[in-house]
């Protein structure tokens, strides 16, 4: 229940979960609005749409039975990468911009908790990335239709898992953004993404009988640490399975989603701890 603080003639609703959610959504709305004016965001979006259209022309060069497959594979590869790039670029400056432009100093002295502000920023960027993914998916579906293909349920599921991966990378960017300056947080987030995508390769190399990861103890230790501290992002990438026509069991999606959201929760919790204690000088 919302507690009302009567304050002279005005009533300020600042206590209770309803008021807290309202503040989170207010910050999210503003973040969405700000990011939606970002030229980089629209630039990436425009280039990707052009690339999807270009894939139709490119597919003309393919063999007759490969035309639809080329457009499908192109979309599966490009759409998540563009959304991840947006998440890294916008996420790395998410908090820094507020501090650098001193806009935060006018907001945080208001009756808003730092955790609410941070969650609002995360929610705003997540919604923007969702919108970007949906828009690109619609364009992709249109392009597939032009080629005589259909946007199947399997493709929708693949994009769904991609969104979990995007959320995970966004939460990592949020954490590094709360901790460091934009270039470093961008590099670290990119590091999480790149290592996360090849975690399964590192695992395979450590289990092999030959090679640096199998034979050199220091490399083996490094591999173990990387596998332990970096999420396995290959979980969310089912392009190979789709291309091979392998159907995944329904519980795979449930487990992958839970696995991804656990990491999102972990990074957001770390961000809250760091941001809560940070001096905003």
């Amino acid at each position, binding site marked *: 229940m919302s507690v009302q603080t009567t304050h002279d003639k005005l009533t300020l609703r600042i206590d209770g979960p309803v008021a807290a959610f309202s503040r989170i959504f207010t910050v999210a709305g503003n973040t969405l609005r700000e990011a939606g004016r970002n030229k980089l965001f629209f630039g990436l979006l425009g280039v990707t749409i052009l690339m999807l259209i270009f894939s139709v022309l490119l597919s003309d060069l393919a063999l007759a039975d490969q035309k639809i497959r080329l457009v499908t594979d192109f979309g599966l590869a490009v759409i998540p990468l563009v959304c991840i790039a947006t998440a890294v670029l916008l996420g790395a400056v998410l908090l820094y911009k507020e501090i650098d432009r001193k806009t935060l100093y006018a907001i945080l002295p208001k009756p808003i908790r730092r955790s609410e502000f941070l969650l609002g920023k995360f929610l705003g960027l997540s919604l923007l990335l969702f919108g970007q993914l949906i828009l690109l998916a619609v364009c992709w579906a249109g392009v597939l239709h032009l080629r005589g293909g259909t946007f199947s349920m399997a493709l929708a599921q693949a994009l769904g898992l991609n969104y979990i991966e995007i959320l995970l990378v966004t939460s990592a960017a949020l954490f590094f953004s709360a901790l460091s300056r934009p270039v470093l947080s961008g590099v670290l987030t990119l590091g999480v993404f790149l290592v996360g995508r090849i975690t399964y390769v590192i695992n395979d190399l450590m289990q092999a009988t030959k090679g640096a990861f199998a034979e050199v103890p220091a490399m083996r230790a490094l591999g173990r640490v990387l596998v332990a501290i970096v999420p396995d992002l290959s979980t969310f990438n089912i392009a190979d399975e789709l291309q091979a026509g392998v159907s995944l069991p329904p519980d795979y999606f449930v487990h992958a989603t839970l696995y991804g959201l656990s990491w999102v929760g972990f990074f957001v919790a770390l961000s809250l701890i760091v941001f809560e204690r940070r001096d*905003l000088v």
Partner: protein
Amino acid sequence: MAEQDDILALEHLGKTFRVGFWGTKVQAVRDVSLVLKRGESLGYLGPNGSGKTTSIKCILSLIQPTVGKIRLFGADPSNAAARARVGYLPEAPYFYDYLTPREVLDYVGKLYGLDGSTRKKRIPMLLDRLGLSHAMDRELRGFSKGMLQRVGIAQSLLSDPDLLIYDEPLSGLDPIGRKEVRELMAELRREGKSLFFSSHVLTDIETLCDAVCILDRGEVVAQGRLSDLLRMDKLESEALVELPLDTLETAKARLLALPGVELTEELGPVLRLRLPTDVVPGLTAAVVDARATLRELSQHRDSLEELFVQKAVHMVSSDGQRAPKAGSPE
């Protein structure tokens, strides 16, 4: 009861930062204690880098004090309900430049939990009060510093707060703007708002404040009610006397021999003297005897500027550089 009236209390507040690669300790604020009571107005003074903004950021929970305690309406500043009763204007306020003043205030109003109808009513009213009604739907990116300052003041008043904390509220404003903001602040005082503000414009502090706290390199160097600090009850006069050139030295010696007379400035044969008011008849007689001319006679009282210079700029070396204080990290 007395404690209930204390809306802001700092107890031995201290803040140390670690700067540079080696994490050198810099004490930005040390042992600051003060109390602001309901309805009072306190001016927070100090030269650049004296720790004013750092203290204000501690009061608003933007940074955590290293030592000491802050009570805002009897609660810790991390308490959102306590902060809801504060209207804050940051130094050189920045807001999202893609928003209009109306949108900024709407955003702030939502954070305060003001309902839609209240926001709709109060926002145009406040923007009008700050002289921004003509620009309320223009994006902030084209605003001058003075106009941004007005937006900052408008947002600080949106929740009708009990305490206003303003960091350099008059900076960046043109003379007319400064007069208007000064009048607004005086009006807010009359409405019963408590005021805590830092400023370099000492005459404004003198006009608007009951009490001052002067900081220098993070430490309080003077604190108290203006009437006490400026010795308003002590009557002093200031005289400008021109001496005859032929008897310059003897006339000067005669005037300075009067009880309580102090030479404050000497420009050739013209002397500026400060003296107790009750010595004025003796001075006029001595001026006549010495064939000197009394050019000016006025009542004198210490100004805040004199006090500020005396307390804050206490050590100036011959090359004009302020000497470091003992124990200072500088």
